[in-house]
């Protein structure tokens, strides 16, 4: 014990910096992933949520969905309700998990773990990057948990679909985790996840054409006959709408909007929200 390890040389600044950044981003990412897998409650939510939405809600509403005639308007979504909401449930799982990653930002701040990283030689942007990357990975994993239910939802999935689907999920998860971090930055006293759930997750989810379709076969005027004008507008303004649409296109090959719109908007969200989160993180 008498001989402590020799002092490291910090002559080569650049090599040290690269080692710090690579090691640091990996360490922060790994921490997020490990923590998520050790949190039984979160894992349970990741399994039970899709089961409830698909098996109960989906199965329950399935008979009322297809080919019905309401007055003069005929719906032409050529899928069962189960198939229709299946991709949206993936998005919901991602949404929940991303926001939970944001909650962990609050705990890191309040319980001091953040300080451990702030006094480390990691440059600030990479601290945040590691954190968001970790959160997004976990969210993507939770999103893919829903895929297990594809059999019940009668959605046949090819391995190519899974690959491209994971890509889309990750893109969405990255943007949403960044959004969660932005929200977490604004919260000074935190006493529960319920606020998040009711104020952020559910409104975004319900207004994303996830549980009901804005039928593309209808004209704008017809859509507004079926749905109130404000609702249509909200759904069209909600960026999550396009993410859900993109996932739906990927898994059941049904798009309500231009297929190029989804990935574009998701990438835009990822860049914009991460940028805002980063600017705020550097300021504090």
């Amino acid at each position, binding site marked *: 014990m008498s001989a*402590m390890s020799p002092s490291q040389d910090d002559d080569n600044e650049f090599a040290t910096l690269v080692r710090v950044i690579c090691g640091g981003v990996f360490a922060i990412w790994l921490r997020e992933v490990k923590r998520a897998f050790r949190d039984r409650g979160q894992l349970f939510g990741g399994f039970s949520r899709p089961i409830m939405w698909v098996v109960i809600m989906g199965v329950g509403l399935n008979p009322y969905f297809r080919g019905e005639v309401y007055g003069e308007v005929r719906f032409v979504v050529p899928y069962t309700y189960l198939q229709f909401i299946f991709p949206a449930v993936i998005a919901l799982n991602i949404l929940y998990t991303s926001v939970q990653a944001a909650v962990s930002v609050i705990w890191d701040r309040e319980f001091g773990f953040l300080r451990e990283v702030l006094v480390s030689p990691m440059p600030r942007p990479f601290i945040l990057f590691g954190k968001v990357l970790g959160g997004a990975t976990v969210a993507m994993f939770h999103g893919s948990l829903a895929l297990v239910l594809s059999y019940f939802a009668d959605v046949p999935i090819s391995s190519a679909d899974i690959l491209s689907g994971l890509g889309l999920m990750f893109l969405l998860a990255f943007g949403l985790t960044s959004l969660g971090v932005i929200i977490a930055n604004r919260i000074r006293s935190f006493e529960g996840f319920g606020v998040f759930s009711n104020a952020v997750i559910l409104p975004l989810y319900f207004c994303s054409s996830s549980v009901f379709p804005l039928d593309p076969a209808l004209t704008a005027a017809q859509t507004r006959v079926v749905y109130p004008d404000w609702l249509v507008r909200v759904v069209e303004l909600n960026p999550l709408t396009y993410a859900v649409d993109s996932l739906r296109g990927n898994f059941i090959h049904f798009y309500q909007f231009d297929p190029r719109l989804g990935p574009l908007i998701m990438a835009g969200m990822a860049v914009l929200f991460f940028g805002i989160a980063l600017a705020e993180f550097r300021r504090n």
Partner: protein
Amino acid sequence: MVHEEGDVKSNPSQQQSISTHSEVAQSAGIGVEVQGLVKRYGTLVALDHVSFNVKAGELFALLGPNGAGKTTLLHILCTILSPDEGRALIAGADVVQQALRARRRLGVVFQEPSLDDRLTVYENLEFHGLVYGVPAALRRKRIDEMLHVVELSDWRERLVRTLSVGMKRRLEIARALIHDSRVLFLDEPTVGLDAQSRARIWRYLHDLRQQRDLTLIVTTHYIEEVEQADRVAIIDQGKLLAIDTPLALKSAHGHEVLEVSPINAEVRAHILAEYQNKIVKTSEDQLTLKVEDGRFIEHFLSIYGSQVRAMTRIEPSLESVFLSLTGRAIRDQEASARERTLAFGKQGGEHTR
């Protein structure tokens, strides 16, 4: 936010001058250099032109009551707060201009634990090593060494949440030394620990000082712990009041005091009136009088000898130094602004730790 890219992108000639500077600092044996630090929060001056040097290898104590500016000073030295004026160097690296370089050289043990409860002891140390860019082989070696020093080798694979408060503190000290820290800051390292654990922590710190070239800067409000420091700085209301060895401080500012408990209120009033200029402190049933020469006690006893219930003569201590410099006793601290959130977390609030 502290400027960070300074030491990364600096051009070669600048780097040359930087390393020369740090060599100078090293050869002069300066661990920490603080020059005219000022920090204001609105109109409140938290630090008012504080300057001092800490020699490399020194055990340096910062003493002061809650709100004196100790933590502000520590946060500036740890590069997480930038000063309004003045500058500070950690082993030759400027905490603002060369924050990343300074951070590689300092280790910090914060007052509130900053471990990840859900990771194991080993994982916490591994995380630290990675974030500080310690190469893999050295990292593993250091982790083994440090766990051995703080006697936590058997707890390696345990989740941190299963550790006691004292063990967590030990783990934090071990963690701060996984990288090549030359200056170790400890903010109240023994607060909330029982006497045995406190002694243990000090033993580790003394051992570590012998094993590697380490400058220790400790804040504490346990006066008896300050006694073992090489030098002590007393801070109050953002100002540096005194800085010297404990012995020199005691002989310069300390004085003997006499604590007396008068038998009744009448006697108390008499004493208060007669020794007006000698009263240092009054409490409900106790008066503290300054003893300027040996004859005073004799004199006091001849008058009030039969009218006091108890009397204690107290030798000069850092406590009395502090009292005479600041005019008040060091109060016990504790109190957190974020209690509600923390309490919620401790109850096991959802998705917490």
